[in-house]
Structures are given as structure tokens and as C-alpha cells.
């Protein structure tokens, strides 16, 4: 297993954001982390990146404990989320230069040029981040996320601000990275159709707990409690949220 999360818990005072979550991700797998707002998806990702210290539980990545090997793990990991910004006065190229250096990339110019080409933002290289559209900013985030050719990629709603054509490009790039280099991806999105198409397995979180785990079709059958031939995650999602409200 590339990622093993055991009994992961995060409490903020009396509030439990994540309560005893366990799951694992195989090498080369795309795992979707689903759930309504406040389910604990982002907190789980933040704990996997070492940005938030868990209240209890254990995270092992590449067979190493995150608590003791944060630096080695993060050298081979990357992350992006459209809600996280870059220094807005710096240009696209300057920002990517900084991240290339942070990851110790051997030939940063070539790597950055290839990534900008891959996400079709070469023409934006001298533009400050503040003058980019949300979609352009998201594509810069994708360049940064693939900068170190990570073995594990954490994506928090990566296509949230993208038009369908650009979202398709991003998904293609991710599937290509998985196919060619065996990249493992942990993916959250509210675009359930996208999750159905992208993810091999799904962990469904609600109120900080895992309520179902399996392939999209297994999740559909388990939560809707009926035989289905096609996954129907949107229906699943509505059932969970409305069930909680009722």
C-alpha cells in the first residue's frame, strides 16, 4: 500500500472534524474522497500533508510514518487546490521557479516549460498571478502540483473553476501521469460525474466518519441498497445529505 491511514482523528476543542477514519491507497490507484461540505475531506488531506497535526491515529506513506519522515514523504508528494493562492505580485514563471527550487528540480527551465506547455499556459508566463482568471490560476496550480513528478498527488477539487474543455485537459493529464508513471492520486471533488469517471475507488465521508468505501458501483449499491448497473453517485450523495437532514 502506498498510503495507509489508520484511525485518523482530528478534534478542534469539542468538535470532531475527523473521527477515526481508516483507508488505504494502492500504488497507481485514484481514490476519491467524497462527502458533503464539512464531512472532513479537506482536514484529512491537510493531515496527510502534515499541515494539521492529528489528535490520534497514524498516517504511513511510502511505508514511512508521516510523523517521523515528513520531509522525505513531501519530497515525493504534491498538492493543489484552487482555493489556495500563489503570491499574487509574482509572475507565473517566478512562482513556478520558486517551487522548482523548493523541490530541487535539476533542470527547472525545461521542466517548467514542459509543464506550461502541457497545460497551455506558456503565453501567461510573464503575467502576474493577480491578473489571471480563476481557471488560469488553477492550471498554474496543476503545473506546481506536477513539478516534482510526485509519486502521490493530493487534489482538492482541482477542476472547481475550470470550463469543461480545460477540466477535460486536466483529467487527461492526470490519467496520463497515472498510466505512464504509476502516479497515485487522492482526489476530492463535488463533480460526481467526474469522480465516477476518474476514481477506481471511493471513500465516502460524512460527519468525519467513513460511511462507505469501494468502487463507484459498490458505493452506489451499498448506500442506495439496491442493484444498479451504472454508478449513480449524485443520487448517493443526495440520499446521504437528505438522510442526515431528516
Amino acid at each position, binding site marked *: 500500500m502506498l498510503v495507509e491511514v489508520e484511525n485518523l482523528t482530528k478534534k478542534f476543542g469539542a468538535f470532531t472534524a475527523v473521527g477515526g477514519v481508516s483507508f488505504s491507497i494502492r500504488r497507481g490507484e485514484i481514490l476519491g474522497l467524497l462527502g458533503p461540505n464539512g464531512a472532513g475531506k479537506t*482536514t484529512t488531506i491537510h493531515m496527510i500533508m502534515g*499541515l494539521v497535526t492529528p489528535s490520534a491515529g497514524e498516517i504511513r506513506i511510502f511505508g514511512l510514518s508521516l510523523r517521523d519522515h515528513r520531509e522525505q514523504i513531501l519530497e515525493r*508528494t*504534491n498538492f493543489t487546490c484552487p482555493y489556495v493562492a500563489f*503570491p499574487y505580485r*509574482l509572475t507565473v514563471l517566478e512562482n513556478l521557479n*520558486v*517551487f522548482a527550487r523548493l*523541490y530541487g528540480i535539476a533542470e527547472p527551465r525545461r521542466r517548467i516549460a514542459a509543464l506550461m506547455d502541457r497545460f497551455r499556459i506558456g503565453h501567461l508566463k510573464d503575467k502576474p498571478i493577480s491578473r489571471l482568471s480563476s481557471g488560469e490560476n488553477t492550471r498554474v496550480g496543476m503545473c506546481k502540483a506536477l513539478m516534482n513528478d510526485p509519486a502521490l498527488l493530493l487534489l482538492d477539487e482541482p477542476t472547481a473553476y475550470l470550463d469543461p474543455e480545460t477540466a477535460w485537459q486536466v483529467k487527461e493529464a492526470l490519467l496520463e501521469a497515472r498510466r505512464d508513471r504509476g502516479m497515485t492520486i487522492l482526489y476530492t471533488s463535488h463533480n460526481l460525474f467526474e469522480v465516477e469517471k476518474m476514481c477506481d475507488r471511493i471513500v465516502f465521508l460524512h460527519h468525519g466518519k467513513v460511511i462507505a468505501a469501494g468502487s463507484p458501483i459498490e458505493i452506489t449499491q451499498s448506500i442506495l441498497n439496491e442493484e444498479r448497473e451504472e454508478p449513480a453517485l449524485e443520487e448517493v450523495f443526495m440520499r446521504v445529505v437528505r438522510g442526515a437532514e431528516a
Partner: protein
Amino acid sequence: MKRHRIEAVMLRHFYEARRNADRITDMVYWPVLDIIVWGFFTIYLTNSNRIRPDIVSFLLGATILWGLFFAFQRDMAVGFLDELWSRNLINLFSTPLGVSEYMTGLILVNLLKAMVGMSAAALIAWAAYSFNIFPLLLVFLPFIASLIFFALALGVLVTGMIFRFTTRIQGLAWSFAGLLQPVSCVFYPLKSLPRGLRAVAWMLPTTHAFEGMRQLLGGQGFSLRHLGWAMGLDALYFCLAVLVFRRVFESARTRGLLVKLE
């Protein structure tokens, strides 16, 4: 600690300084403006025979060196605020960058910026007021090192406070060193302070640094006593600042503040 990551932090702030007019203003404009005002003031005092020449030298020297101290402390905190204002902390700390590498990069780049400001002020003092601080820098070096060390401790402390209390207390970045100026005996000797404040002043490395430099300029020789106090207090405050910083950083991770700071 990895050198390439420290360089990345320096590069990030170098780009910021190049793109942000505020940073250029902070770096050069204020030190130059200060020296121009104090320069005219010393000309007035000299022309009216109200001041000894060594006092003129000291006023201008003190202006330049206080500028170095103030700029270094302020820029450490403002450098960190730049990450908060641009909501860049998650991007930075989701890389292998360690907090010690981040702080080292911030220290080095801001030391360079403070030196640029000091050099600009020193050149103006030399060109406009015939006050050449450069030969004195070597003699003053231990005291200047003490000022830099204390500015570093304050910068680390204020950055730690911002980690804990976020941008609600960002004004400290510009005001904290200023709070210490009246009791740091920058432009006047310790004995001119009210008796009650002297004990407070004695506990500041800045007081000993400026007292020591004043003694040197006044021909009273090098004061090992003041240097010893300055360095001892520096070490104490630096250790305290690092302890506070480590504690608030870990607390920010535990409380989830690192991903919410803005």
C-alpha cells in the same frame, strides 16, 4: 536543512521586493529620508555652535544603525505577512520546506535588504554631510552584530506572535522596534533617562550597543562590559524567541491555524 530550499525562500522574497513598490520604499526610502532630516538637523546644530563634532557623528551614525536594526526586525515580520496576505502558507508548507529552512531564508534575504538600506543611508550621509561611517563600521562591528542579533530575536518573536494571533496584530511588525526606541538610548546616554527607566533600558541589548559605540566615539575606549551585556541579553532573547516561535508553530499545526491563517 537543504540549501536549495533556503534559496527558494530567498528567491520568493527577492521577486516580491522587485515587484512590490512598498518593499522598495521600506528598504531605501525611509532610511534615506531619516538621514536627510537628521543631517539637516546636525548642520543647524553645528552652525550655531550648539554641539560637539563627535555628537554630530554619533547622531548620524545612530540614525544609520537604528535604521538597520528597525528595518531588519520589521522586514522579518512583513516577509511572513506577505505569505499570509497572498494565502501562500499551504503551498509553502505542503512542500518539504521545514520551518527552520523557511526562517533561515527569511533571515538571510532580510539581512541583505537591511544592508542595502543602510548602505544607501550611509552613502547619502557621506555625500551630503561629509560623515563617513564606513571606517567606523569595522570598529563598531561587535556592537552592530549585537543589534542585528537582537533585531533577529524580535523578528522571530513578532513572526511567532503573528502565527498565533494572525493579521489582527500585524501592526506589531512596524511598531514593535519603535516601542523600544525611547528606552534604547539611541540618541542620548543612559544617564539622561529617568531613574526608573534605566533598569528597563539596561535589559535591552540596544542600549548597550549604542552606549558602547558612544564610548568609542567619545574616545573612552572599547567597552567589553557593554559588549558582554549586549551579547548575553541577545542570546537570552534569541533563545526565548525561538522557544516561543516553535511553540506557537506547533500549536498552529495542532489547532489547524496553519491552513486558516490570513
